[in-house]
């Protein structure tokens, strides 16, 4: 690195500009990884927190939480199968509603059986079950002013709910979740507009349907066994992580578009660094020939140049990463969909470094092609 370090000081202008490009790319890559993780959390935090391994939907090629409809035979069928540790029917309906001060609220009503593993722990207030219309609301709604004791009225069906507890942030399809006792959810979802006329009761059939089945399956239950049960019961079962996330509105599109921007950035980094070192190596051809004539080996020159690329890349990435982490602190406090997960940030930064080094390595490789005879210049 004897020459490389002095080159950095000698051609400061060029290396500063290139370093700045690396800093900006690293900055954007890091911010995007925060946005990516934040968007995912904002979309499906309610699912992520639920302690299940699989979700069973109504049979479909591309099942979704919104469209799925499963009946009692299906969920009771699943409950009796070997390898099933836990089974809970789960209702999922998106509602517009009015809060205590008549403010409009958009919420996803999830029907769960009180006390089941599908019911999250509250951070304030009481769990479900004490009253038939008591519900838990996601912290997101609490942040918007919904308080324990508030009455929420669902539009159209006019079902009245009372907030009894607040949970951690829980979203699905970017919409905050309100957890209701399953019968209340079934009445709201399958009941007539305007609610049941006075004096009439809901027909029993209302209580025979939910949206999906939340499952805790043992590892011994392999893909083929699950497919056999699906075939028998008319369900489509997806692994919770990733596969069932895709069934949430917008998830796949968001992950894909943010991922594509990230991949593009990393590709750009490889190409830009590669182009820079290609030009830099061509500019240094005379010098490289000279050092070779003086007895510098290809190995020496390659180490020198790769070290230089690594230094530029490492330094630039560290600065960009630092700046993005610093800015991220503020973004996370604002409640925007932004979150740093150490694994995703590390993966993005490592991918950037590797791509940049590959670009640099491909370019400095041409060092080996320089013929030292050019040091014996003819009248230049």
């Amino acid at each position, binding site marked *: 690195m004897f020459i490389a370090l*002095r080159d950095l000081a*000698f051609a400061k202008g060029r290396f500063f500009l290139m370093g700045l490009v690396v800093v900006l790319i690293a900055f954007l890559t890091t911010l995007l990884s925060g946005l990516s993780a934040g968007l995912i959390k904002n979309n499906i935090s309610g699912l992520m927190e639920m302690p299940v391994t699989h979700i069973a939907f109504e049979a479909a090629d591309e099942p979704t939480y919104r469209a799925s409809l499963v009946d009692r035979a299906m969920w009771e069928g699943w409950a009796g199968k070997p390898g099933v540790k836990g089974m809970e029917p789960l209702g999922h309906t998106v509602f517009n509603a009015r809060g205590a001060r008549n403010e409009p609220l958009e919420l996803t009503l999830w029907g769960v059986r009180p006390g089941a593993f599908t019911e999250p722990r509250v951070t304030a207030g009481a769990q479900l079950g004490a009253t038939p219309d008591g519900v838990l609301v996601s912290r997101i709604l609490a942040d918007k002013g919904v308080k324990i004791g508030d009455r929420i009225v669902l539009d159209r069906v006019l079902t009245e709910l009372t907030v009894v507890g607040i949970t951690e942030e829980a979203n699905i399809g970017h919409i905050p979740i309100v957890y209701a006792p399953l019968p209340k959810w079934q009445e709201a979802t399958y009941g007539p507009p305007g609610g049941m006329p006075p004096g009439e009761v809901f027909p029993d059939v209302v209580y025979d349907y939910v949206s999906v089945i939340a499952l805790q399956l043992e590892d011994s239950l392999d893909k083929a066994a699950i497919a056999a049960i699906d075939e028998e019961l008319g369900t489509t079962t997806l692994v919770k992580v990733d596969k069932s996330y895709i069934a949430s509105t917008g998830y796949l599109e968001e992950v894909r578009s943010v991922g594509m921007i990230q991949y593009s950035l990393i590709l750009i980094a490889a190409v830009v660094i590669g182009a820079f070192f290609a030009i830099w190596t061509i500019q240094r051809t005379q010098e490289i020939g*000279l050092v070779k004539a*003086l*007895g510098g080996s290809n190995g020496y020159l390659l180490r020198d140049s790769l070290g230089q690329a690594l230094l530029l890349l490492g330094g630039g990435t560290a600065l960009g990463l630092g700046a993005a982490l610093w800015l991220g602190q503020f973004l996370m406090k604002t409640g925007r969909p932004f979150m740093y997960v150490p694994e995703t940030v590390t993966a993005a930064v490592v991918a950037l470094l590797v791509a940049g080094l590959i670009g640099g390595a491909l370019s400095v490789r041409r060092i080996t092609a320089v013929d030292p*005879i050019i040091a*014996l*210049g*003819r009248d230049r």
Partner: protein
Amino acid sequence: MSLLARDLVLVLGDGEQQVRALDGVSVEVQDGELLAVVGPSGSGKSSLLAVCGGLRTPTSGRIRIGDTDITALGQSLLTGIRRDRIGFVFQQSNLVPSLTAVEQLLLMVHLRGRRPGRADRDRALALLREVGMEHRVDRRPGELSGGERQRVGIARAFMTEPALLLVDEPTSMLDHGRGRQIVELLARECHEHKVATLMVTHDPGMLAYADRVVRMTDGRLTEA
């Protein structure tokens, strides 16, 4: 004897374009002897330098530097020979643009895979003093005149205590007065360090400093 070349033939190009750049050249240079090779451009002077310096492998013939026969060596061994046994002084000096004068010399230590120590630095400074550059050791090539660059180039060539010094048109970029000073310096250093020196030049005014002069025409050597 530090350079011994026998019956060197170097054929360049293919087919119709084929040229015998060296056509049976034999040359010997003793330790401490400055041999000048003169001749018009295109006569094969540079080819002789390239072959003796291990930068071109001759089509036939043998070359010995010190007690090492380099004729049959591969590229990486030749790189090692250039590094350890040969000093080069190039036309227009050919310094690394980002290094200061003293760093040009210390680079030679790095190329041998060592970190320069106190002794190396002292030696580099002593060599720069010998060539009259002690006041500009921390200047980069861009801040030096053509003559000053050539002086640094000469000091660099002696840094590794070479067995053979190869000098390529050292005065081509200098005016007559500076050119004379440089060749005078080269001759003095060559005698002082007892290094066999082969200098290629087209400038007959520089021959007074040579111990012996040979003439090259169409790839053949004749005693001048």
